[in-house]
């Protein structure tokens, strides 16, 4: 499994990114930068009601507007497309019969420009009959709550208790039981580029092509085939570079469906739809993590955690299932040696925008709760927060570590990561500084939080068997073409997205063949159903793409050696590849450059060897073996990190100022350390948004109130600390370079660290904050409620 030293070269070096020149010069073609001849533009009329019956739609005036080519309603759409289904709920890309959230697409217009298409929306008359709305999960689960779906006789789409060991006995036997209730708001990824699609139906063949910024191309192909009925051999999904995704663009199903059907109605003209920011904030279908937690944790007197019970009620809006809540099962006990654990999930639908993936896919809230409970126990037992964690860590010699639910962690050294974080933070000094500030009457708090990061997603195995599509694996593919001049072109089957995938792919391939990076070019190729590949998700590409790349390298190497053997008249076993040449193991005698071999593979000279496979292109579609036992982990690697933060809460305004922030993390070997650091800092920023700012607020009757960047606050440079970062490297035994997935690490821990620190700051006042985000208003209200603020 481990890569030989000769192939490591550039891997692990902070080379400059190969993606950057085209991005820096404004020449990258994002989806909205494409203009096709005859292209039409879509605008979507959306529901103003959270829940209503559609009585009638009159679009005749819109259709009569010059420039409007087609108007599509749900009633027409069902003649061309099937529904989406999730856990018993069923819906279409355009509302059919009723609407279930404000912002739900109702009518789509295709016109010669977006301006005209939007004019047309004003001319559409929709009559609604409002229905009582379900504002949240609490209401949704009441026996007499209005129902969202006729296909379900309840609003509960998923309910299950996962229990391991004997949590009841563990809590009964505990010296200390701490309890807590938490409320997590809905938030979302909000990449700077919104979703966008261009689709073109081909009336001649019945095929269809969509260009989009979809994150997982296989999902786009699946939509064309399964939802639109496009024959497999004629479904094409092209991907453009993304302006970020973080999960939000994994599936763009409804937009692909709407534009493809419109294209069909318009005789095959290409049809573009670009979501605008207000639409994105209101109804992207990627809102995430609105949950209530009710938990109890048991400890012995020495601070050892004996077990816990977590009850989670999650609100997934009108469309969504429990998957982001289920992910906690893959990192159930966090970094702690706890064996008796219960995790009880109820997932309900409500009349709000739908739920979708956001970086981390759920565990950030899980760790916020665990870490806060650790702090509460530490306070009750008179232990330092760092010490209680130390006492509970899984120990380095226990890896691979089997969690109580059969999900295995590959590797780690948690005490060392904690030690490094505390050392870098100057923890003792920090506590003194806190004392000093407190003695001046200031509210200073310290947070020390830890989290693990499932990475290298291999498919819907283990706990993900609970998914409707559970049981499938997630292959990743790469193709290498040896050009006639001996340079290498590497096809990957997903879009350029920001995480530096193309750069590390270049590093891996260049190092394997011992050529300079300039001789390797990575491009985003057309994803094909016949080349199974998944794309980035679940912090997988540094692991899964690397396996695919090395698999393709191996295939090419084999061909090169066979051909080299023929040309040098030596046995292939005696040959190797070094510095871009096929060389005899003895390093003596004649050798051949990649160019020499390429020329033969490309048909020159004429005396080609007969019987050898000379195709200069090789493809490896790599699939991780499924975990051995049924429960096993859907993730191949587990990175981990510790954050230490010192912050101050302003007594008068409730505002938080971060004074120091330190991150130590261990994602094994870093393929490109600078890229990893950048991604860590970016995840930290999103975690800060979660902890302090971001929240989709709805009115009591289900109207979204956070529909602009003036209401939904993304962190700016003023809110995000420039964190000091330290690396601990515990190589993963599961990967060629010892690397681990690293894309989601920081967002797993930042919310917990900041939330713990805010509560530490408020502790002297005897008040506790249990709701995120820790906004000035919430903090101020907590301060006002303090017995000491009277």
């Amino acid at each position: 499994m481990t890569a030989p030293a000769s192939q490591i070269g550039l891997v692990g070096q902070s080379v400059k990114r190969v993606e950057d020149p085209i991005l820096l010069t404004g020449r990258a073609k994002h989806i909205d930068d494409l203009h096709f001849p005859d292209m039409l533009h879509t605008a979507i009329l959306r529901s103003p009601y959270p829940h209503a019956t559609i009585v009638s739609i009159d679009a005749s005036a819109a259709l009569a507007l010059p420039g409007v080519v087609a108007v599509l309603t749900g009633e027409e759409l069902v003649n061309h497309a099937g529904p989406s289904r999730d856990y018993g709920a069923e819906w279409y890309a355009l509302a059919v019969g009723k609407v279930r959230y404000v912002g739900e697409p109702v009518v789509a217009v295709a016109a010669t420009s977006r301006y005209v298409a939007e004019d047309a929306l004003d001319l559409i008359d929709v009559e609604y009959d409002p229905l009582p709305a379900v504002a949240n999960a609490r209401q949704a689960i009441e026996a007499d709550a209005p129902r969202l779906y006729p296909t379900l006789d309840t609003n509960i789409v998923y309910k299950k208790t996962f229990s391991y060991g004997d949590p009841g006995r563990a809590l009964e036997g505990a010296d200390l039981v701490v309890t807590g209730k938490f409320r997590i708001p809905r938030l979302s990824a909000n990449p700077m580029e919104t979703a966008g699609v261009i689709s073109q139906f081909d009336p001649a063949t019945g095929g269809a092509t969509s260009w989009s910024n979809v994150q997982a191309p296989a999902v786009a192909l699946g939509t064309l085939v399964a939802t639109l009925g496009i024959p497999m051999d004629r479904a094409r999904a092209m991907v453009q570079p993304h302006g970020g995704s973080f999960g939000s663009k994994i599936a763009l199903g409804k937009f692909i469906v709407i534009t493809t059907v419109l294209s069909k109605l318009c005789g095959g003209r290409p049809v573009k739809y670009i979501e605008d920011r207000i639409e994105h904030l209101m109804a992207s279908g990627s809102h995430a993590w609105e949950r209530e937690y009710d938990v109890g944790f048991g400890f012995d007197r020495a601070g050892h955690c004996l077990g816990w019970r977590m009850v989670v009620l999650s609100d997934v809006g009108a469309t969504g299932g429990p998957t982001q809540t289920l992910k906690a099962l893959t990192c159930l006990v966090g970094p702690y040696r706890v064996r008796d654990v219960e995790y009880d999930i109820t997932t309900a639908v409500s009349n709000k925008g739908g739920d979708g993936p956001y970086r981390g896919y759920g565990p950030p809230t899980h760790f916020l709760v665990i870490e806060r409970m650790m702090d509460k126990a530490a306070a009750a037992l008179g232990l330092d927060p760092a010490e209680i964690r130390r006492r509970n860590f899984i120990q380095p010699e226990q890896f691979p570590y089997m969690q109580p639910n059969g999900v295995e962690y590959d590797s780690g050294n948690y005490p060392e990561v904690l030690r490094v974080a505390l050392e870098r933070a100057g923890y003792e000094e920090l506590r003194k500084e806190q004392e000093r500030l407190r003695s001046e009457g200031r509210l200073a708090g310290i947070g020390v939080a830890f989290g693990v990061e499932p990475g290298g997603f291999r498919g819907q195995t283990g706990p993900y068997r609970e998914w409707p599509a559970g049981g499938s694996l997630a292959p990743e593919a790469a193709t290498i073409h040896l050009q006639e001049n001996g340079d290498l072109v590497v096809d990957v089957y997903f879009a350029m997205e920001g995480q530096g995938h193309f750069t590390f792919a270049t590093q891996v391939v260049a190092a394997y063949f011992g050529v300079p990076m300039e001789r390797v070019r990575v491009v985003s190729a057309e994803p094909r159903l016949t080349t199974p590949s998944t794309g980035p998700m679940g912090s997988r590409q540094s692991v899964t793409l690397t396996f695919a790349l090395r698999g393709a390298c191996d295939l090419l190497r084999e061909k090169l050696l066979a051909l080299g053997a023929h040309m040098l008249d030596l046995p292939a076993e005696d040959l190797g590849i070094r510095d871009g040449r096929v060389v005899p193991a003895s390093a003596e005698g004649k050798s051949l450059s990649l160019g020499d071999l390429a020329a033969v593979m490309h048909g020159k000279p004429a005396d080609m060897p007969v019987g050898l496979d000379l195709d200069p292109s090789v493809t490896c579609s790599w699939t991780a073996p499924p975990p051995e036992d049924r429960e096993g982990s859907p993730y191949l690697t587990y990175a981990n990190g510790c954050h230490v933060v010192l912050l101050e809460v302003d007594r008068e305004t409730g505002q938080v100022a971060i004074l120091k922030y330190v991150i130590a993390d261990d994602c094994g070997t870093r393929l490109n350390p600078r890229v990893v650091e950048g991604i860590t800092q970016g995840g930290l920023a999103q975690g800060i948004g979660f902890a302090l700012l971001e929240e989709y607020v709805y009115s009591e009757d289900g109207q979204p109130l956070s529909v602009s960047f003036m209401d939904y606050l993304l962190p700016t440079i003023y809110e995000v600390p420039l964190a000091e970062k330290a690396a601990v490297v515990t190589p993963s035994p599961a990967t060629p370079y010892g690397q681990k997935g690293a894309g989601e690490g920081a967002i797993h821990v930042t919310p917990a660290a900041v939330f713990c620190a805010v509560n530490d700051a408020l502790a002297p006042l005897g008040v506790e904050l249990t709701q995120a985000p820790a906004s000035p208003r919430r903090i101020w209200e907590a301060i006002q409620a303090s017995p000491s603020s009277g």
Partner: protein
Amino acid sequence: MTTEARPQATERTISVVVNGERRSATVLDRKTLADFLREDLELTGTHVGCEHGVCGACTLLLNGRAVRSCLLLAVQADGQEIQTIEGLAKGDELHSIQQAFWEEHGLQCGYCTGGIIMSTLAMLEDNPHPSDEEIYEVLGGHLCRCTGYEDIFKSVKRAIELRGQGR
């Protein structure tokens, strides 16, 4: 290029100098400057992130001043000089600010980057030696969802250095 089919919509002919080149076009009165550049002039390096003036992705220079092109109409730019991200590099040679962002990993997806570079350019033209606070003030007007700003800040510092070396 998008055809405008609405007969009652009013339009007029404007003339602007974009990246040193004079361009004339007939545009709808209501068309934003960002849409005009992206659709009519096919200069798609100016990105649109929010269309309500908050994110800064659409920033370009109008007569040397950083402005948000989603908040301006094309007709407001009539007779004026525009600089966009496409005008910075000379062929394959990056502008020193671009070079600095490359060296310091100042971008991930790169969607916000053009706007930030244009703001940086406006700042440095005005004030070649900004303090950290002044840099924060400029970057504080931009949203980036990928980088957490650290490497952007370092890139700007590096750009100042490169500029000081006459690059």
